[in-house]
Every structure is written in C-alpha cells, then in structure tokens.
C-alpha cells in the first residue's frame, strides 16, 4: 500500500536546495569564519535529531576597531620617557607598569575575541537561536520556532558592509515578546537580529526556504 502519511517523517538539510548548493561549493566550511554551513557542532538545548544548518557570527572585519587599538597601545611603553610623571618613577615601577599594560592589552584582546567568537547565530531545521554575550558577565539567548517567523529581511549599511559583503538580517516573529534591554541598549530592530553577518543574502535565502518547507509540512500535517 502506498504511504500516504508518515508522522515520523523528518526533513533534512540535504533537502534544502540552497544548503546543498553551498555545501557542494565547498565554501563556508571554516569554523573560524563568520558563516559555516551544516557545521558538526552541538549547542545547549539542542533537541534530538535537530540538525544545524547555519552557524553564523559577526564578520571578522567588525573586530578591526579593537585590533587597531591594541596595535596602537602596544607601542606606548616605547615612549614612557615622554610622559612627565611616568618618567620620574623608579625602574622597578616602570617594569611593573609595562607588565600591567601588556597584560591588560592581552586581557582586552582575548575578551573581545571570545565575545566575537561565541556571539553566534544558529539556524537549525526547527528553530532560530541567537546567542548574545555582552561583556563577560551577561548573556542573552533568544530562541524561536521557524514556523513563528513572519518576515525576514536584511540591510547593508556603509562602505565596509558593501565591500566585505556583510549586513544585518532582521527576523520578525509572531511573538510580541521583546528583549527590551537588548532592544534599548544595543539598538537591535528585533530580538532576532543577526548583526553584521557575512553573506546575508544567503542566510535570508536559506531561512526563506526553511519557512516554505515548514509551511508545506504544516499543510501536509507533518508538524513536529
């Protein structure tokens, strides 16, 4: 008898045309990069059988500000003698000050790198997850179902984003819930804003395809 309905039938990322196209292209496979397609990772609260389709983070270019600051500050101890007060302290204190400056720079660099590296956006075949860490003591994790997504759009502002091809992907959900603190403090248009993500057009295309697939499944009565 032909199979008419199977409630256990699951979709896989291989079924998505866009994902398959990107996977065969061999691009977006580097875990240090800002966009990874079909990564082999795990995350907190991942459901059994849930497949990760996109792992994204801000484009590396967004780190140039603090990298430039560190490069500038690195040379400051070479000119200690030019600072009137510091020139008067003993050699022992000079050494301590230099150690403090370099350790602070190392700490600043590592903290910024960790924040960039772990501030990730995850798109699975069921949900969207936005993991935000602000500073080293505050984290905010937003999760929504793909079927609750109403609208996806992206914007690219400025020379840098056009040149390096990154932008903000804004995902509007049916939920009225807003993370006010996030909204107020960091100016995000929605709790699901994938800020400065690389190749935003590809991300939007994949999410749109997932939404279509979800609608098709809903129509066929195969909602998980």
């Amino acid at each position, binding site marked *: 008898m032909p199979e008419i309905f199977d409630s256990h039938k699951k979709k896989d990322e291989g079924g998505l045309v866009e994902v398959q196209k990107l996977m065969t292209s061999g691009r977006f496979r580097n875990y*240090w990069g800002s966009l990874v397609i079909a990564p*082999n*990772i795990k995350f907190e609260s991942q459901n059994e059988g849930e497949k990760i389709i996109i792992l994204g983070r801000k484009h590396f270019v967004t780190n140039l500000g603090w990298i430039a600051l560190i490069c500038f500050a690195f040379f400051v101890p070479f000119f200690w003698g030019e600072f009137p007060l510091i020139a008067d302290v003993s050699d022992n204190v000079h050494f*301590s*000050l230099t150690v403090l400056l370099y350790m602070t720079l190392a700490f600043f660099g*590592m903290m910024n790198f*960790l924040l960039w590296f772990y501030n990730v956006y995850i798109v699975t075949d069921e949900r969207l997850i936005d993991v935000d860490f602000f500073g080293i003591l505050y984290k905010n994790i937003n999760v929504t179902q793909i079927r609750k997504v109403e609208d996806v759009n992206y914007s690219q502002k400025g020379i840098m984003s056009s040149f390096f091809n990154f932008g903000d992907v804004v995902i509007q959900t049916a939920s009225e819930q807003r993370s006010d603190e996030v909204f107020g403090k960091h100016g995000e248009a929605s709790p699901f804003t994938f800020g400065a993500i690389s190749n935003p057009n590809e991300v939007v295309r994949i999410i749109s395809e997932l939404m279509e697939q979800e609608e098709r499944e809903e129509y066929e009565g195969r909602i998980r």
Partner: protein
Amino acid sequence: MEIFPGINIDISLSLIVGIMVKMLMLILLFLSIIMVRQEALMDRVVNLPMGNTLKTLVWVFFVMTLILTTIVVIA
C-alpha cells in the same frame, strides 16, 4: 614623613604608582579567573570543535597573570 609616632615613611611618586599598579594587577588576576569561568560557560552554550584550544589559551593567560602578579606584588 612621620605617619605614626616613631614610624617614618618616605611617600614618593614611585611608591604611590607602585601601589596602584599592584592593586590593578590583582584586579586583572580576578578578571582573568572570571574569564576562565565565562569561557567554560560559553563553551557549554555552543560546543565548538576549537573550544578546548580556547579553554587552554584562557588557562595559560590566567597562569601567566598569576605568575606576573606575584612577581609585581613581591617586587
């Protein structure tokens, strides 16, 4: 300068800056242990393949800060 009867301390710029640097090194040491903990929590939220490398890096930084703080405080 006689702060207490019989106790003379020569307050100089080096002394003040030295004390401030020592205090800042201790604060940095405290922040680095927070960073070690936070990295472990971040790794738990998103378990990436290079998470262990970063964990090692952060621990190395903490140990280095500990050693240098000890040197600076004792010096």
